[in-house]
């Protein structure tokens, strides 16, 4: 009780206009910013992987397994911020046991389980099964048994079985694309369906979330590819990199168009909430929305990738541009999530005033925990790379 008084009392002075007395406490903080950010990376990375299998984009083959493992690493972490922000994390299992079917949030259990079990793990398993068997045959000790266990002690490497694997991967990918859309579209729906909040309530919200997810996912895989490949002392495949950058560029165009459409629509319809929202956007959200999200996170990367594509630049310069652009995109998408989650709570539902979000450093919902959660997928990804090397040269031939 004491700490909540200490946390909330100074905020009373920061309020401008009128907010409902219960609104002084901002309920969804940094952790809930992380949640759509992480799931967005998952969905984006998976959709990138699907391009290889479903649309046969050969250039992207080097990133296929990497994308899958990236998606998995981030998906494992994605529920953690949700768990951390709950008042009672120990009761979270109720969401699986007695889901309220009219609640978008309750669907999380199903969408997440479906995506993790039926899509991502299955696809990775079928894709790696032959390699797992071959590795475990060669290896000794712990690794041998880990790989054996991961392959579920499967041993059939006949041509027929491998054909079945390949077919399965294709089918799962085809199911996986709508599933990935579902996974992140539904995260958008969690916000977009709150009619009490005009900043969130928008049919475009799931779609905007989805495309920004794909943007962030592609940018992330691009970053990982550009960091990991030199670390392995291998040359970066420029064909692959250019292709990645192209896709990133196209999806960013769609994403930016959608966001602009949403903006124009709001301004044009000019509903009762327009005054408070414009006060918010031109005031407390100006830096994170206009400067970081739109200018630094969208326009500058768009412009620089376009420049790299138009002018015949040396490969080294291109790499630098792509790398910087991808980092800026990550910043931009993170602040997109911030602006939706935090921004949507900064104005009162009385539409008469603004409040403030004060981040804490310690505590479950503080900066430190969020930082750790953000680091975790990278650690998991490192372990996954060790257990299931995604590199082409690790692929095994049946002997």
């Amino acid at each position, binding site marked *: 009780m004491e700490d909540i008084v200490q946390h909330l009392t100074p905020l009373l002075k920061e309020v401008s206009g009128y907010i*409902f007395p219960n609104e002084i406490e901002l309920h969804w903080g940094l952790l809930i910013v992380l949640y759509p950010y992480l799931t967005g990376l998952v969905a984006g990375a998976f959709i990138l992987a699907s391009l290889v299998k479903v649309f046969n984009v050969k250039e992207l083959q080097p990133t296929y397994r990497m994308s899958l493992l990236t998606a998995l690493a981030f998906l494992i972490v994605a529920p953690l911020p949700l768990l951390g922000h709950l008042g009672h994390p120990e009761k979270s299992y109720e969401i699986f046991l007695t889901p309220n079917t009219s609640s978008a949030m309750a669907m999380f259990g199903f969408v997440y389980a479906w995506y993790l079990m039926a899509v991502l793990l299955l696809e990775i398993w079928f894709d790696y099964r032959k390699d797992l068997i071959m590795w475990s045959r060669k290896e000794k000790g712990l690794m041998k048994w880990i790989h054996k266990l991961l392959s579920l002690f499967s041993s059939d490497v006949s041509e027929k079985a491998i054909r079945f694997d390949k077919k399965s991967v294709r089918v799962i990918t085809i199911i996986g694309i709508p599933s990935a859309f579902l996974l992140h579209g539904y995260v958008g729906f969690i916000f977009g369906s709150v009619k009490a909040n005009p900043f969130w309530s928008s049919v475009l919200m799931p779609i905007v979330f989805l495309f920004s997810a794909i943007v962030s996912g592609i940018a992330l895989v691009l970053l990982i590819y550009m960091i990991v490949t030199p670390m392995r002392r291998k040359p970066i495949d420029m064909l692959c990199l250019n292709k990645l950058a192209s896709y990133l560029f196209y999806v960013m165009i769609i994403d930016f168009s959608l966001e602009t459409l949403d903006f124009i629509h709001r301004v044009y319809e000019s509903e009762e909430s327009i005054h408070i929202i414009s006060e918010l956007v031109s005031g407390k959200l100006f830096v994170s929305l206009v400067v970081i999200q739109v200018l630094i996170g969208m326009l500058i990367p768009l412009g620089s990738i376009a420049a790299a594509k138009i002018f015949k630049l040396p490969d080294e310069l291109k790499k630098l541009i792509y790398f910087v652009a991808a980092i800026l995109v990550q910043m931009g998408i993170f602040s997109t999530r911030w602006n939706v989650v935090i921004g949507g709570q900064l104005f009162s539902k009385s539409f008469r005033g603004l409040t403030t979000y004060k981040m804490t450093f310690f505590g479950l919902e503080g900066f430190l925990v969020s930082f750790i959660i953000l680091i975790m997928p990278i650690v998991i990804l490192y372990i996954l790379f060790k257990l299931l090397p995604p590199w082409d040269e690790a692929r095994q031939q049946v002997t």
Partner: protein
Amino acid sequence: MNILKILNFTNQSQKRRSFVKMFLLSVAAIAIPGRSGSQEKPKKKSGWLLADGYDATEHLWGMGVNINDCIGCGRCVAACKEENNVPRLPFFFRTWVERYEIEANGRVSVSSPNGGYDSFKPELSDKQTIRSFFVPKLCNHCDNPPCVQVCPVGATFKTVDGVILVDSDYCIGCRYCIQACPYGARFLHPVTRTAEKCTFCYHRITKGMSPACVENCPTQARIFGELKKGASPLVRFKRMHNINVLKPNLNTEPKVYYANLDMEVS
């Protein structure tokens, strides 16, 4: 067959409810064994016999608020905090009172210092106020409650007598209901870490008493009563006044009815 059932149900229930919701519910009812379907479906079950002779299925509660009678003394706020052990902090309210001051130039200022718990101070400035009044606020106990719709686990629900309650033992503290409430009527209890809100003093009304805020209003600005009985002070109140609800455009169908509500109130 299934579709027919749905349509039939929609007709019977006389509720404005979207086809999509019914469809989702029925799909879910098939998909998840053991689920009991829509939670609003009134059920004549002994489970609704809640206290001595109180059969919830025979009641439907609502509240009327007459703005012209409210003196902004904040006794309702104080009584509510006392009765329901709401933290005595200026951040947590099951009910609160707002003061509106509308100036000749159209400027509107709203205030609710400590939720009106200590009443209000005489205004000092010389602003040209042309209208001014108090508005008590509380949970509207919506007939179409967005908070219940979004609760992921079934910890908040609508009773057959029309009251929205929170099961604090089952609440996981996700705060989606707080986001979904258009009226700011919910908060997270700082100690239990679960969602909390006005219950219409369910522990009192099931024993034939009125809610603490109504009991303690010195001017009878709050009228509590039955909605489906002819001889009820609330029905009379609704007959005698022009009635408004808060944010009617959101189709939440509140059961807190305001008489003489100003257009500026949101």
